[in-house]
């Protein structure tokens, strides 16, 4: 079978202006710059003009090539800034590639946002027509699907109300309903499932699945790995604008989740010159260790995690020093703070100490976590040091098949449960 989309050596470069304000260049700046360039050229006619140091280049995509066959449902995964959206924008013809080539066979409809072009003053009915036209439907197509769209969005009663009076849920439902009833040969979808309530998300996913089963080609960008593995039969991993691999969703997701933590540290050490802290305490080392005392990035849910801090106390002190850790999830929400007064050092004399916080097994979920370290004197509320986001660790779950998706919740403690017969 010949591919419906063939991507060959695709690259896209963006210039980054450092001092540029948001909202475009100003003509005044451009005129001033070209005038100064002109005068420096007059004064030094044989000197090559200096390259503007504020102009830097950024490769959003670099030499990406892969094929998509008819009927493929391809998930595109990668971290923020990996180039996913740029790829979709090029495929949707919104922006031009810098080099490379894409050949597409068939009608493409891309859905990079729900409700593009919705106008708050217009009624639901008017917006259906408008949005349909923006997404490339003809008037007769929209008229034919009109009732179906309205039923899917569940807004029958509000058809002639301006959408500015809609609740945000209704707005999103209507917007997605229009998009869901497009009948393209190739559908490109970017992260639209991140909207609406859980029930509606499920409905949308079902609709997308139905589109895929009709033999149409779907390209789907999402951070929701559950959705990718449920919807797609193939996945592409991008990292820093480069193609990492194309594989089955399971393999790709594993690679993506594994690769993602690669950038982060499992331990950090300082020498006397750069150790963070003050005259009371200097931090020397922070590490995540497993039960055997080895540094580790990955911990199984059935093992405990040891966060170890080593620090030097240069002088004599009478007030207690309290080490503390704060653990965050990927959204940078603090999950818990831990310290224990019984282990505070109440008197110190020019020595090195180590404190360990043991996070019990079967407590964390299978996710990635980040650690902050604090040292304070509780009575005076003096903060001696605070290092943010110093190490990270990731918890895996060998007792459970990851194909069932991720269990929600930032922690998953193993509480005691009781079941007994009562009558």
């Amino acid at each position, binding site marked *: 079978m010949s591919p419906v989309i063939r991507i060959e050596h695709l690259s896209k470069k963006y210039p980054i202006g450092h001092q540029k304000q948001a909202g*475009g260049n100003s*003509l005044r700046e451009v005129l001033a710059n070209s005038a100064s360039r002109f005068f420096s050229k007059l004064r030094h006619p044989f000197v090559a003009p200096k390259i503007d140091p504020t102009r830097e280049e950024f490769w959003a995509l670099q030499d990406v090539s892969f094929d998509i066959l008819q009927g493929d449902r391809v998930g595109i995964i990668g971290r923020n800034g990996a180039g996913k959206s740029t790829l979709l924008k090029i495929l949707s013809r919104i922006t*031009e590639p810098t080099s490379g080539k894409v050949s597409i066979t068939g009608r493409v409809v891309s859905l990079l946002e729900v409700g593009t072009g919705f106008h708050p003053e217009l009624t639901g009915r008017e917006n259906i027509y408008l949005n349909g036209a923006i997404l490339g439907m003809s008037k007769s197509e929209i008229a034919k699907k009109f009732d179906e769209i309205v039923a899917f969005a569940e807004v029958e009663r509000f058809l002639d109300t301006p959408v500015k009076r809609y609740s945000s849920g209704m707005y999103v439902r209507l917007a997605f309903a229009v998009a869901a009833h497009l009948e393209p040969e190739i559908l490109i979808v970017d992260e639209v499932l991140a909207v609406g309530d859980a029930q509606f998300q499920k409905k949308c996913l079902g609709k997308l699945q139905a589109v895929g089963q009709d033999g149409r080609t779907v390209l789907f960008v999402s951070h929701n790995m559950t959705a990718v593995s449920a919807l797609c039969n193939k996945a592409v991993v991008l990292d820093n604008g480069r193609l990492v691999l194309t594989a089955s969703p399971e393999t790709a997701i594993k690679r993506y989740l594994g690769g993602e933590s690669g950038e982060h540290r499992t331990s950090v050490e300082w020498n006397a010159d750069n150790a963070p802290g003050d005259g009371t305490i200097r931090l020397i080392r922070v590490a995540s260790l497993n039960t055997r005392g080895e540094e580790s990035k990955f911990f199984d849910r059935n093992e405990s995690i040891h966060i170890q801090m080593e620090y030097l106390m240069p002088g004599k002190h009478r007030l207690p020093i309290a080490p503390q850790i704060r653990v965050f999830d990927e959204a940078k929400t603090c999950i818990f703070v831990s310290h224990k007064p019984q282990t505070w050092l109440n008197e110190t004399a020019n020595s090195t100490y180590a404190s360990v916080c043991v996070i019990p097994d079967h407590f964390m979920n299978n996710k990635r976590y980040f650690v902050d370290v604090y040292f304070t004197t509780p009575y005076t509320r003096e903060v001696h040091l605070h290092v943010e986001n110093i190490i990270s660790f990731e918890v895996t779950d060998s007792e459970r098949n990851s194909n069932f998706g991720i269990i929600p919740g930032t922690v998953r403690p193993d509480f005691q449960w009781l079941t007994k017969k009562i009558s």
Partner: protein
Amino acid sequence: MNKQDVLVIEAHRTGRHYWRDLWRYRELFFFLAWRDILVRYKQTTIGIVWALGRPLITMLVFTLVFSKLAKLPSDGAPYPILVFAALLPWQFFASAFSGAGDSLISNAGMISKVYFPRLIIPASTLIVSFVDFLISLAILVGLMAWYDFSPSSHMFALPIFTLLVFFAAMGTGLWIAALNVEYRDLRIIVPFVVQFGLYISPVGFSSSIVPEQWRLLYSLNPMVGVIDGFRWAILGGNTPFYWPGFLLSSFLVLAILITGLYYFRKAEKTFADVI
């Protein structure tokens, strides 16, 4: 699926199917024009009143200032009609020019999320101004009936001049729309150009008061040829037609339109990146 359906995306080659795409997206063009008209007359209950009142009030003020106070000649026609015949193309030009200038910025969301030939956006704003133009035209007919001023056979040339003002508005509109995306501070210049243009164009007075030897130079303002054309067509034989000025203005209008299209097409490729 046959081979002809293959779409090739490459650097600097996206423009190949442009004119075909423009035809394909004609429905979107009508929808956008329809949306803008709808929103305009929905948002303000005085929408229609505004469309009727603005040219009438301007006409009254201009008649008072230029005819009653400055005592300028009216070339035989009632002064209000002389003014209104010029206001017709001028107001169309002014509103289309400023509308097109803002159009890309105010549709930034669409531009960064959906593909379509971008030319549709400034072009559809022209339609909104054209509706106002048609309303003004109806007012003119009423005004002519009021003054018992019968149109001459020159009236048949009106569509030609209408086309000319369309081109002038489109050409300048494309320039300003594309420049506006890249250089946001240009926005401030638009109202100034519109206000200034009203006084350097023969709207409140007849261009016959311009000394003969300066007449051709005056026609370097393309709106001079357009407005003179409208007057000639509406007021009839009383005003002699000044061909050199008309040809110069038409040439300039076409030049602005062609360069405007060229510049817009060139700038269009990066709209989604910079907007």
